[in-house]
């Protein structure tokens, strides 16, 4: 079972956007991975979830994103208790409020890169066409604009992860969750990804990154250590 230590690195003001209270969860009955986690994450904060493997970094990420229901405790996103929402409401809230960067990018292998980036707009109930200029702008800013019409099999791992970040940032989310976003990247690609996440935080988003990478931890404004 993990212990949680919150280490603030920089001061953040304003009402917390993500509030977790007494979160407990495990994958096997009576074996909690997380027990009694409390968090307050404010706009502009870049939080690193760190700790050895198996201590629940990704699990905490999924709980905060509403992908898992805690055994006990609550998660509030912009004041909304995720536990009180039905699946459809929670999914819509996630689509409109959250961005997700997966450890393995998980792009649709059958679609163009641009269509993959536009995917969150569909779930948020917006016509994807309206978001094409922003998607192209994000791809441009991440240096992968030339791949907009390519298929996932035609891009490198580093390019794919940058594309995953574009997808996560498309809807200008208030909260960005990233699970080991630089795990398999070279230095330049990792820097590009972190710059983009920093940019989102500067615009007021909460960025939560589960990571082992010290480069990432060093750039975060606070750290949650699961040990």
């Amino acid at each position, binding site marked *: 079972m993990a212990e949680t230590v919150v280490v603030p690195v920089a001061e953040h003001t304003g009402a917390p956007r993500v509030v977790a209270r007494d979160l407990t969860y495990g994958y096997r009955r009576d074996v909690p991975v997380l027990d009694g986690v409390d968090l307050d994450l404010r706009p502009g904060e870049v939080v690193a979830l760190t700790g050895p493997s198996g201590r629940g970094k990704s699990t905490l990420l999924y709980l905060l994103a509403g992908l898992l229901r805690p055994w006990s405790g609550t998660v509030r996103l912009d004041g909304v208790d995720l536990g009180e929402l039905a699946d*459809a409401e929670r*999914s819509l809230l*996630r*689509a409109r409020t959250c961005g*997700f960067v997966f450890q393995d990018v*998980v792009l*649709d292998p059958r679609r163009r890169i641009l269509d993959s980036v536009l995917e969150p707009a569909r*779930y948020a*109930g917006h016509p994807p066409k309206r978001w094409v200029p922003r998607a192209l702008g994000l791809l441009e800013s991440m240096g992968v604009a030339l791949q907009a019409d390519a298929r996932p099999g035609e891009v490198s791992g580093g390019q794919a992860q940058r594309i995953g970040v574009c997808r996560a940032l498309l809807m200008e989310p208030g909260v960005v969750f990233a699970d080991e976003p630089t795990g398999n990247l070279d230095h330049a690609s990792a820097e590009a990804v972190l710059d983009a996440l920093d940019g989102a935080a500067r615009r007021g988003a909460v960025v939560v990154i589960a990571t082992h990478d010290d480069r990432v931890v060093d750039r975060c404004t606070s750290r949650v250590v699961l040990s």
Partner: protein
Amino acid sequence: MRPAAILGEAWSSALASRAFSILFGGLAGAVVLAVVLLTAQVQAQRESVRVAFEREQFRTVVLVDNQDKGVLPPEMPSRVSSLSTVTRAWSSSEAFEVSNGSLAEGARASAHMLEADWSRLPITLTSGRLPNGPDEAVVDDGSAAALGIDSTGGWVHDDLGRAWSVVGSFVPDHERAPRSVLVPWSGTTPPRSVTVVAGSAADVDATVSSAAGLADVTGPTDLTVERSTDAAAIGGDVRSTVEAWAVVIVATVMGAGVLVLGLLSLLMVHSRRQEFGRRRALGAGRGAIVGLVVAQGVLVIALGAVAGAAAGSAVGWALWAQLVDPSLLAALVVATVALAVSAQVPSAVLAGLRDPVRVLRTA
């Protein structure tokens, strides 16, 4: 997701998953094609059975004065012929024997006197002509051979000394057509029987009632009606049996198709588990995932079913000159889509219920 977005996504997925789309659509198309072809073939068989039992011999009814009470008036054929359901009628005397007048000793053959419009009798002349008067006769080929009368003609006489010149020979057109030696009616004796040919098999019952109403019947046993009821019943039975088997085959084909579609759908959902996990993580609700799987199935299967219906109609026309009723085709396509959707629901629900975290952690 909005319904239009789900449809758009479903269409994109259908295009992207070409192998499954071809399998789904192809299977639905093959099922519909098979059912349409079966339907066309059954229609052709039904039509062929109907035509077979629509032949004149099955439309012919014989009213017999079996107790010789004279219940059949001599003018009955002309009166019956005026009925709208009757195509022709003739009356016949009781059979009597004739022999070849040119031979001292010879075989004998049966003969009948007929009251009829001779030109409309169901017989085909093989030589000579029809009688012009009461002293002329025609002989069927079998009786001519038995009596020793050749195509050059001859004459026949009975034991009462009546004689008739044989002016032609014929073959009966069917089993219930007049046969033997036929001579025009003479005298005032009431006919022994009246034969009536209805316009169609469906008119036979009405024809029997109408014709019987013209007879001077006083009791239920005065008149015997001979008709091909057994043949008609057999025809109906054959049609019913063909239809029943068709229904069984259609149900089997549809059932097997639904089963295979359900299994294919499960396979598809399993192969796309990572995709559904990603969609869920990015904000797609369970309902959207279920709708996506079902809508993709509906689009592909509907296309396949329509193509199968079109191909089946074309082949059915080419093979049996049968067009299946368009409303039946539409119902078949709708039923196929409905059944296919119901077959997909379990796998769609499974896709919706799949834990996205488990998928993402094991991707």
